[in-house]
């Protein structure tokens, strides 16, 4: 008997196996089509922008293409002393080309990111270069402005030669590649990004901690009080949540400033002297107070939703088995709330790490965070590649924390509601 006859056929003569596969494929396509819009949405709103950010942060083709001759001539230059005439000549030829295409403005913007001071000298060079004579370009260019005779500016140009670069990431850590290719820190009086990263992390960490300490009892009360009280309490939590962020920030300023309501009260009851009012605003204290209050609901709500599901009989059982209230709480209640704690802490931490309006308004000298710096480069200098690099650094920081959390607690243990 041949194997042919063994095959089971459907009524229209197609082998059953084939027919089944066909039907299955159809279903798979249908299922895929069903999720396709969501997939597309994720691609467009999430994967694509982040990919674009990543590309932007390392892509430096533009300058490479603008100064092809210069970079070729610079290959032989060791980058220590001022380059030779041939580099100057190549630069002049590239530059003339750019001026003809009206692209020298873009070049000046780009070079200004690497070293400040390029904008004005390129404008000057454009004006003067029209009347340049042939030959001896080194002297002619150097006579335009003294910065053109400064080797640091030529080193800065050389830095932009590679089409793909990690310099923006180095810059985000206050480092750069010097002329001999070593990675070194920038001058002490300009080291600011590391300070800002640490400050951002510090503020986000403490705000999360304070939120947790305050939200836990509130959420517990909300979950255990009888309905008529807990509803009122819930409104107290939600009302500020619905109030504009700026209004809440401004109210804290009015309350806590040195001539503010709280200080007036302290002076009135004689707690502090009139000329010795404590400073509670325009410093870190102000940031902590205002941010904790603003982010509190994000901690209360997940905690509440988890606590609501914990049966009160569990605590009673723990106590009846001989545990003191503290032991019963610690061994039974607390572990059950961990999914809520995880969700709340992650939520608050991630929101806090990207915050900037509140600390900028109430934080005083230490009110600038890394997100202010990102916004500055997005809006003002238009150095989007540097802003992207810092944005990605921030994102990978958050992902790292997420990873650590997953290792310690387990991500399945998160519960938002």
């Amino acid at each position, binding site marked *: 008997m041949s194997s042919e006859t063994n095959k089971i056929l459907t009524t229209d003569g197609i082998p059953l196996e084939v027919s089944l596969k066909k039907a299955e494929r159809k279903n798979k396509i249908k299922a895929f089509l069903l999720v396709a819009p969501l997939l597309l949405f994720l691609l467009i709103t999430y994967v694509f922008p982040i990919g674009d950010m990543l590309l932007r942060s390392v892509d430096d083709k533009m300058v490479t293409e603008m100064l092809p001759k210069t970079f070729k001539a610079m290959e032989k230059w060791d980058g220590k002393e001022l380059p030779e005439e041939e580099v100057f000549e190549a630069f002049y030829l590239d530059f003339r080309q750019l001026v003809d295409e009206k692209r020298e403005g873009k070049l000046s*913007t780009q070079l*200004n*990111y690497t070293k400040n001071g390029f*904008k004005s000298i390129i404008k000057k060079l454009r004006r003067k270069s029209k009347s340049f004579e042939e030959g001896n370009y080194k002297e002619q260019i150097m006579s335009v402005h003294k910065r053109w005779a400064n080797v640091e500016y030529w080193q800065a140009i050389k830095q932009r030669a590679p089409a793909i670069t990690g310099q923006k990431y180095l810059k985000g850590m206050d480092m750069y590649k010097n002329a001999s290719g070593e990675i070194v820190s920038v001058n002490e009086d300009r080291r600011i990004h590391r300070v800002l990263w640490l*400050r951002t992390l510090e503020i986000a960490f403490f705000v999360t901690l304070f939120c947790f300490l305050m939200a836990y009892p509130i959420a517990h009360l909300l979950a255990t009080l009888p309905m008529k009280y807990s509803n009122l309490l819930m409104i107290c939590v939600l009302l500020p949540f619905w109030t504009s962020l700026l209004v809440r920030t401004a109210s804290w300023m009015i309350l806590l*400033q040195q001539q*503010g309501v709280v200080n007036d009260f302290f002076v009135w009851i004689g707690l502090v002297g009139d000329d010795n009012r404590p400073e509670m605003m325009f410093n870190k204290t102000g940031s902590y107070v205002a941010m904790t209050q603003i982010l509190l609901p994000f901690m209360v709500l997940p905690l509440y939703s988890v606590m609501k599901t914990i049966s009160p009989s569990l605590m009673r059982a723990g106590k009846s088995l001989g545990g003191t209230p503290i032991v019963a709480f610690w061994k039974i209640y607390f572990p059950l709330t961990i999914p809520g704690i995880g969700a709340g802490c992650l939520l608050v931490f991630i929101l806090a790490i990207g915050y900037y309006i509140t600390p900028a308004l109430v934080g005083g000298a230490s*009110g600038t965070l890394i997100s202010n710096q990102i916004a500055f480069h*997005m809006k003002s200098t*238009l150095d989007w590649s540097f802003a992207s690099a810092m944005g990605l650094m921030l994102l990978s920081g958050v992902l790292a924390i997420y990873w650590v959390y997953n290792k310690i607690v387990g991500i399945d243990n998160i519960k938002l509601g």
Partner: protein
Amino acid sequence: MKTISKLLLAISFAISVTTSAFAVTVVSWGGAYTESQKLGYGDPTAKALGIPINWVDYSGGLSEIKAQKEAGAITWDIIDVFAMDTINGCDEGLFVEFDFDKDFPAAPDGTPASKDFFTAMPSKCAVGNILYSWNYAYNTNNVKGTPKTIKDFFNTKKFPGKRAIYKSALTNLEIALAADGIKPGKGGAKIYKALETEKGVERAMNKIKELCTDPKGGCVFWSAGAQPPELLVSGEVVMATGWNGRFFGAEVGEGAPIKQVWDGQGLDYEYFVQVKGGPNDANGKALKALSMMTNTEMLAGSAKYIAYAPWRKSSIAIMEAGEPWYKDGKTNMVPQMPTAPQNTKNYFLVDPVFWADNGTELGEKWEAMKAGL
């Protein structure tokens, strides 16, 4: 009934789409400032030309327009920007370059537009709109004596108490040097020459540091324009730098006990730029509206509502002839202008080229200094 309401909805939608398609979109900072622009020259221009003008608020910077351009969907025509942004945006090719005297009308006496404006434009893409001042003010109830000079702002012995200063380096370095004894020179040229050197920057930073760490002084950093008058009125600080229009609003508009000091003020400008490839760029409507909004008479109009000086010299004459020019009908506006002769005895012009050149590095140094406070 239902079909009728649906039809009405469709018609109103169609109308709103078509009007906004025909309207010239002008983007500005919002609040009292946009109000002064709208009442001062926006509405009259729209009426005279028959081109509707659509006002949109933004919070400054070029990121939105750059994003619009990259996405290929430009919806803005005219933007009200800082000087530095006109330079950066022009270099990026975002804005239209003007043929100044051809594109903008001469003064009534025939002076060409380029001569009628107070100074030359920072870039080919800019046309002046208002001049404002970074001056300082004090609370008359909390300060004994009368501060008169920029040195007094830093003099904590004579005038003890906290000061409010702007959160970034911009203008702070300049006033620090002016108070430290450097004569600004013509338009502040000497100050900027000093700031070109490391030594000058250090000197300015030290002066600020000294003020902020002084137990009799101390600093509060403001970031929003509404803050300085508020900090003064609440008594949180005794003196504050700020924008003169805001101080004027508190002093004259609301009767707050504050007084402005013009010595060592920094004159700064707002500009209009026209977006290249905007919806009304090719048909010429944007330029037509812009050119009318910045003529002598129109620019004077906005000073009726806010204490910022019109860019054109010829506008001042119109205001003088019309005093009291302020909308309350009793306040003379010319003496309130940052450009008034009695206010410009010792001043500097905020140099956009300097800040476009050095803004990032000085900003980093400034933040590093602040972190050490």
